[in-house]
């Protein structure tokens, strides 16, 4: 990991006007959480419904998409990545530095808001907050790595990412049972379900896969897409339209 690359990445991610977008969804979630608490009398199952549907299903993948593509996509699009690549620095450490910044940003702007949302909306001894915190962290890592890799692999990373996060996971995942098994969100919910024990079914926390399967698949996807992204960055074509 290269500290200079990390510094430039942080400036690029948070220094642009686009960074304001990173605040919109978390603020919206906290507002909805307060509303849910008021409307449901702080019921954990209402809280789980909000966290599962909006926080995990919409906010987290969208934030990870913004962050994962934001740390490298614009530089590849406008060609300024050449200033990083034309240096005697292994491409691997460039990519890992960007991934590290993206993951830290994901924790601050997505994982912590998900936890805060669950805590505000209604919880018992912070059980829901902890369980969803673990799920959000695991899913956040996998989503961010996936979307970062996508933006190295294709110029249409945002579109592909949106299709995956919203269409595949949320819409198709809701109707087609098999699709639910191939979903970062479902894999990450497995440990949350296990942590909540007997309360899980009562509060409506439910994963399509078992915990060992979920954790294994998360690890395989995260490591796999990162490896692919490093390979692609090593041979990234930078040529003018000429």
């Amino acid at each position, binding site marked *: 990991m290269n500290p200079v690359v990390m510094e430039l990445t942080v400036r690029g991610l948070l220094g642009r006007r686009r960074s304001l977008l990173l605040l919109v969804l978390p603020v919206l979630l906290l507002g909805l959480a307060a509303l849910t608490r008021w409307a449901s009398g702080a019921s954990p199952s209402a809280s789980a419904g909000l966290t599962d549907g909006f926080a995990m299903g919409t906010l987290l993948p969208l934030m990870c998409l913004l962050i994962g593509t934001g740390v490298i996509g614009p530089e590849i699009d406008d060609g300024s990545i050449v200033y990083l690549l034309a240096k005697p620095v292994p491409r691997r450490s460039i990519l890992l530095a960007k991934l590290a910044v993206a993951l830290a940003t994901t924790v601050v702007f997505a994982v912590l808001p998900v936890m805060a949302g669950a805590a505000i909306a209604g919880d018992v001894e912070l059980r829901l907050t902890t369980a969803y915190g673990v799920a959000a962290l695991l899913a956040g890592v996998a989503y961010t790595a996936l979307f970062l890799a996508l933006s190295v692999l294709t110029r249409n990373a945002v579109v592909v990412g949106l299709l995956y996060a919203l269409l595949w996971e949320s819409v198709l995942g809701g109707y087609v049972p098999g699709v639910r098994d191939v979903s970062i969100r479902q894999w990450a919910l497995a440990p949350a379900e296990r942590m909540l024990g007997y309360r899980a079914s009562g509060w409506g926390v439910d994963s399509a896969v078992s915990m060992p399967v979920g954790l294994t698949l998360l690890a395989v996807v995260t490591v796999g897409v990162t490896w692919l992204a490093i390979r692609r960055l090593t041979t990234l074509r930078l*040529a003018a339209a000429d």
Partner: protein
Amino acid sequence: MSTITLTGVSRWYGNVVAVNDVTMTVGPGITGLLGPNGAGKSTLISMMGGFLAPSAGTVTLDGGTVWRNPAIYRTIGLVPEAEAMYDMVTGWQFLLANARLHGLADAEAAARRALETVEMLDAADRPIATYSKGMKQRVKMATALVHDPAVLLLDEPFNGMDPRQRLHLMDLLRRLAAEGRTVLFSSHILEEVEQIAGTIEVLVAGRHAASGDYRRIRRLMTERPHQYTIASSDDRRLAAALVAAGAADGVTLAGGSLAVQTSDWGRFVHALPRVARDAGVRLHDVAPADESLESVFAYLVAR
């Protein structure tokens, strides 16, 4: 002293051949890579800079391959054609970051020296987003020089520069070459290349069309008629004056501008300002017509 060697280099994208079997050696001194737009100059420079794998052939720097070898960037400084930079940082922060990425022992001194070389120290504390095109070009140049490289690759460095900046950059390139560096720059304007390049490599439609010093290339090119497009306060009067002065072989007035043909561009270029002044005509725009240039290049290929 470093040398880039291309041996039988081709590059194709699907069915389109961008660079076709090019063999050349680029050594110390200034080499101009001349060719019309779309000739494959950027593709060739990308391959020399290790950003593109040749589809066939080899590109080596002092005997070592450049593809997938980031170590070459200790030796190579690159000025890309794209204007985009890290807009949100200041010139100073950007140069310092570049120096640190190179792992230089005294990054601050190197950044300051590079900014000094391109005369950008005064504006170094402003965000790059506020720079003019010429200033950005100079900062790009500084990033390429920050690690004191033996080889400089510049893709269309004179694009968008005003005449004063152009002269300044030419001086700088001459100075760098005099220090024993290998400097290669691309351009589609013969006059630009001719002024500073010791060696000229002509690329047309992906093929290496000609190679040599400027006299040889110039002779090849001046055998062909040149064409200029001129916009002035009184095209008709200027046309008559140019013909009367014997500075042009033919003139055409059409489409609101004046097209001039000459077989001796040197004489024309020197005569034009004098003739215009004597005739009381104000020149708004003088440009070599691209078509003519293309036809010269086409002529070189057909040769």
